[in-house]
């Protein structure tokens, strides 16, 4: 199965809606262990992205993703802006020139995105960040692709793993980002960035499932 540039634009739109719908929820999560702005930040960024999409409607997937990344970098701010911005910019590099992508392309794109986040944030799994949702998701997705399971199902498995990773963040102490200042007190609270990562992946899977 492949998806084309129009599908990718659809995915971005559904991602923006998912963030808008969960703006308050993400902010509430951030108020428990951060500074109560993650939903606001992400929504500001995704709304700006929506405004940029018409200008890349007929462009290749690489350009679309790079535009999303650059828009996030210049509108989100905070920690999540450079992180998600870098992720989408790297994803765009990995998809440069393509009008269509298949399971394998998406694997490369996903890998590049996560790698970007890790380099920018100098964090690894287990530090109570978005990486705790994304890394297991990527692993599940890679396993599924290696086993030639279809794109839709592979993405569903990635979403499932992201959800588990997101929930796992409740049990651990934050050692990166603002929540790290809380030490032990961060235990029991779900990481907002892991949650937004789960929501973004879920949005992607939904669109692909509906194709």
């Amino acid at each position: 199965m492949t998806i084309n540039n129009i599908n990718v634009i659809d995915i971005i739109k559904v991602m923006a809606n998912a963030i808008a719908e969960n703006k308050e929820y993400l902010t509430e999560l951030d108020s428990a262990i951060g500074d109560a702005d993650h939903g606001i930040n992400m929504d500001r960024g995704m709304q700006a992205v929506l405004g940029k999409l018409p200008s890349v409607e007929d462009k290749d997937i690489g350009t679309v993703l790079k535009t999303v990344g650059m828009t996030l970098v210049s509108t989100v701010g905070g920690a999540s802006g450079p992180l998600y911005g870098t992720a989408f910019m790297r994803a765009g590099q990995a998809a440069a020139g393509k009008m269509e992508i298949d399971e394998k392309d998406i694997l490369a794109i996903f890998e590049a995105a996560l790698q970007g986040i890790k380099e920018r944030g100098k964090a690894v799994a287990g530090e109570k960040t978005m990486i705790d949702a994304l890394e297991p998701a990527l692993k599940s997705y890679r396993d599924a692709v290696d086993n030639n399971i279809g794109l839709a199902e592979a993405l569903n498995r990635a979403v499932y793993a992201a959800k588990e990773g997101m929930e796992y963040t409740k049990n651990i102490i934050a050692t990166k980002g603002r929540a790290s200042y809380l030490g032990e007190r961060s235990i029991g609270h779900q990481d907002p960035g892991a949650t937004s990562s789960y929501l973004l992946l879920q949005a992607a899977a939904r669109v692909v499932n509906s194709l």
Partner: protein
Amino acid sequence: MKKLINDPNTVVEEMMEGIVQAYPQYVRKLEGFNVLVRADAPVSGKVALVSGGGSGHEPAHGGYVGKGMLDGAVAGAVFTSPTPDAIYEAIKAVDGGAGVLLVVKNYTGDVMNFDMAKEMAEMDGIKVDSIVVNDDVAVENSTWTTGRRGIAGTVFVHKIAGAAADKGMALEEVKRVGEKVIANVRSMGMALTPCTVPAAGKPSFTLAENEMEIGIGIHGEPGTHRESVKPADEVADELLNKILVDLPYESGDEVAVMVNGMGGTPLMELYVINRHVASVLKDKGIKVYKTFVGEYMTSLEMQGASITLLKLDDELKGLLDAPSDTIAFKNFGR
């Protein structure tokens, strides 16, 4: 949420306009960006200082733009670090050919955004370096965490590194002085009440009528722990106890003191705190060279205070006393 604003979505832009209209003799705004630069920027041949961070910390950082302190201040959304493009524009606007020093508070977001801007400016051939302020002793310093936060001590970095630049020192020297301040400054804060980010519409945490939060940052984050409210002297003791042992500050040392209000605290209470700080330092044989009591690095309408100590040597004393003329920090050189 009760606020004197029009719209949470435009509050930062409207604030920037309000500042520029009030103080055109000090600052101008870069078109299209929430960036304030010296009215006379760029100052040719002088190392330029750029700082910034989320909004909601007023007078930081726009209030420190002017002679003897910052050349540019970049304002993000409320409590959200600014984006690299805005920081990049600030760097370009203030570079007077001698390079630009970025004064960054140690938050993951700030560090990453300033880093990206630095990379962008360096691609243009501008000499850029950065220092990261991490004065908050509330947070344990450990190599496997993000490290300590930057809070009110940052204002001393602006003042002293700003004076170094104003004296004509080279970028490396200004950076050295800034890092000397960072090495010698420690702070800690507490809150009696939370604050409300306009776009969030409700307080970032809640405290009972008899509770206070110790070890807060400056973004309405909860602190390291919660306690019953105590008399001001005991609160000051609790903050000082962590600060003093950290550097440590010892008998014979000379320090500058800052008692900083978080935004909603009456000045009266800050002075009550300073009274006790002065007496504790006296008892310990630590000499107070100069004191600053007021709102320097705030968290919107939060009620609370932070205490900052900066250990001084002759070089730092001279630069602290050097003239500065900005909206919120004026010094005639005494």
